[in-house]
């Protein structure tokens, strides 16, 4: 690894949401521990997938990277600059270079703007190009994501769910940012469109060296695009490493359960993929020790009392870390 700063470096990132009853002096009902002590490095040009179950903190992490949430503690550095301590103009410049595709493509598109206006809006916000340049780039970006030029005058509700997601992707891509954070960009899309969009993401990266953070609840869906995978559980990273290393030799029982949970189509009826038993952890009162211990098939006494720290697995692929007391013994699935 060179001494140059990573495109993004996250250190000790923690985000809590205070739960209060309505009103100025509403009673506190504790806090949601959405993210706790997350460390992460994203190198330029790579695709990092962040995976984990519903509620584990994926969108919160994405929003902290995109400056939409201020962290409770910790730092996010963009090319070495701490974005939450940087002066306003620097923050705005970084915001332009980091674009996000939101999880809910309907809620994030303004219903009173046409598709063309939505796609072009970032150019206006960041004062880029004149009118003819803007319309040329809008048309070009729209066609890259597979939207028909004749449809661009229509409003979001006139498009199907998958078409709306394409609009959102075009909007994120139009500024040619350094980093695109895509929060579940595929789950609203049907399989053939999913493949087209994945191929599109890969093309964009080949052409312009884009960096991606790809958020997904589905490990199988990111296998094709991710260089590295970070697995979140209960607001913490429990395993991270090169995608193929994780698939071939995960060293964390939670990741292993995700790999087994990838559903496969078959001829028979009824649920036929293996899923994790037990209940997802409370985010208000997370389990002590290893947060995964109430559901872990490999749990031992130490797991209940002592939290395992993420540890590099030197005998595995480079950059492979796992937060499990028994990581070394968990060779492969």
């Amino acid at each position: 690894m060179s001494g140059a700063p990573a495109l993004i470096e996250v250190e000790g990132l923690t985000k809590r949401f205070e739960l209060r009853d309505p009103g100025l002096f509403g009673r506190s009902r504790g806090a949601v521990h959405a993210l706790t002590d997350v460390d992460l490095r994203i190198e330029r040009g790579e695709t990092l997938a962040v995976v984990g179950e519903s509620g584990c903190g994926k969108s919160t992490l994405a929003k902290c990277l995109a400056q939409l949430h201020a962290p409770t503690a910790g730092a996010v550095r963009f090319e070495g600059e701490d974005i939450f301590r940087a002066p306003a103009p620097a923050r705005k410049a970084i915001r332009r270079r980091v674009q996000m595709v939101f999880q809910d493509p309907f809620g994030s598109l303004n219903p009173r703007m046409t598709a063309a206006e939505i796609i072009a809006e970032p150019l206006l916000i960041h004062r880029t190009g004149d009118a003819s340049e803007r319309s040329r780039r809008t048309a070009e970006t729209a066609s890259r994501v597979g939207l028909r030029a004749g449809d661009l005058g229509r409003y979001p509700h006139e498009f199907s769910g998958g078409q709306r997601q394409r609009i959102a992707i075009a909007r994120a891509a139009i500024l040619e940012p350094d980093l695109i954070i895509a929060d579940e960009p595929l789950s609203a899309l049907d399989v053939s469109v999913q493949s087209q969009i994945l191929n599109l993401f890969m093309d964009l990266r080949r052409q312009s060296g884009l960096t991606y953070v790809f958020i997904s609840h589905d490990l199988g869906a990111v296998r094709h695009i991710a260089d590295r995978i970070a697995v979140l559980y209960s607001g913490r990273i429990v395993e991270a490493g090169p995608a193929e290393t994780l698939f071939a030799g995960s060293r964390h029982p939670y990741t292993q359960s995700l790999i087994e949970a990838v559903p496969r189509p078959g001829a028979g009826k009824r649920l036929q993929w293996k899923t994790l038993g037990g209940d997802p952890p409370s985010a208000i009162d997370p389990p002590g020790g290893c947060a995964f211990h109430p559901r872990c098939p490999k749990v031992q006494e130490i797991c209940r009392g002592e939290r395992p720290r993420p540890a590099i697995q030197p005998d595995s692929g480079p950059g492979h870390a796992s937060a499990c007391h028994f990581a070394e013994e968990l060779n492969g699935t």
Partner: protein
Amino acid sequence: MSSPAAAETAQPDILSVEGLTVAFETDDGPLTVVDGVSFGLQAGRTTGMVGESGSGKSVSALALLGLLPPNGRVAAGRAMYRGADLLALPADRLRPLRGDRIAMIFQEPMTALNPVFSIGDQIAEVLQIHQRLPRGEAWERAVGMLRRVGIPDPATRALAYPHQLSGGMRQRAVIAMALACGPDILIADEATTALDATVQAQILELMTDLQRQYGMAVLFISHDLGVVSALADDVVVLYAGRVMECAPASAFFGRPMHPYSQGMLETLPSLTPPGHDLPTIPGTPPDLARLPGGCRFAPRCPRAAEDCRAAEPPLTETRAGSRAACIRPGPDWDPAEDPT
């Protein structure tokens, strides 16, 4: 429980959709986006509806519930439910059915949730209106439903506003609301696609349970063929607003008859080794305003020939219980591997 074979033959439809046709008024004139769609739903059974983005799945569902946007209208068809045609029912007779006897889970959860009320309030309200439960009991039931859809700390989370929940939790809140009244018919539009496998399995089990308990009929709209194969008894395939194939799930996944169905099954990412570009069905769905003559799949069909462009092929029985809209139907399977 009767044997599956008996159920397959004896079950009358609880909802019978015939020739559903929906048109939108657009700047370029009327656009038919759902064109003569027919299928039936049976108590205790699940029908999977699949098809590419824009094929008309959501519009079909919205039409059944009288929820089309203002520029859309039902141009033809019937949807018979307990002796009444849902498509002809006046709004004041359809409204009490909606959310009670016929429930829908919308593709975008935020459209079904009110941002200024807690999710507990919203679920409890449904129960107060339709089941006439007193407030306290409705609230208890709402918390219970949130627990059943796998939301941790349900009693605290019931107090949360939609924006305070994660995307998957919002989706589950909407599912809890739809299932709260124990409907006869559930229309689930991409209800579980935003959910991880574990939560998804939990929801599907809950749906299957309710199905067994109350004989709920489910229309499960999804582009996730893996889930459809695990859940559905029957499959309806839409392409550009028309039914291409309609078959028992085992037949569809084992030996699809329509070239489009075959193409869909071949694009599954799980069949492609990593690092390779994923296969896609070449071409794109047709522009509905400029449909090709004849079979609308012809421009993308590997089997297309001159006669395909002559007339739109009707849905025809290809084998017992299966129908396909193709003049050259048939599975592209290796006869040596055919178990029958």
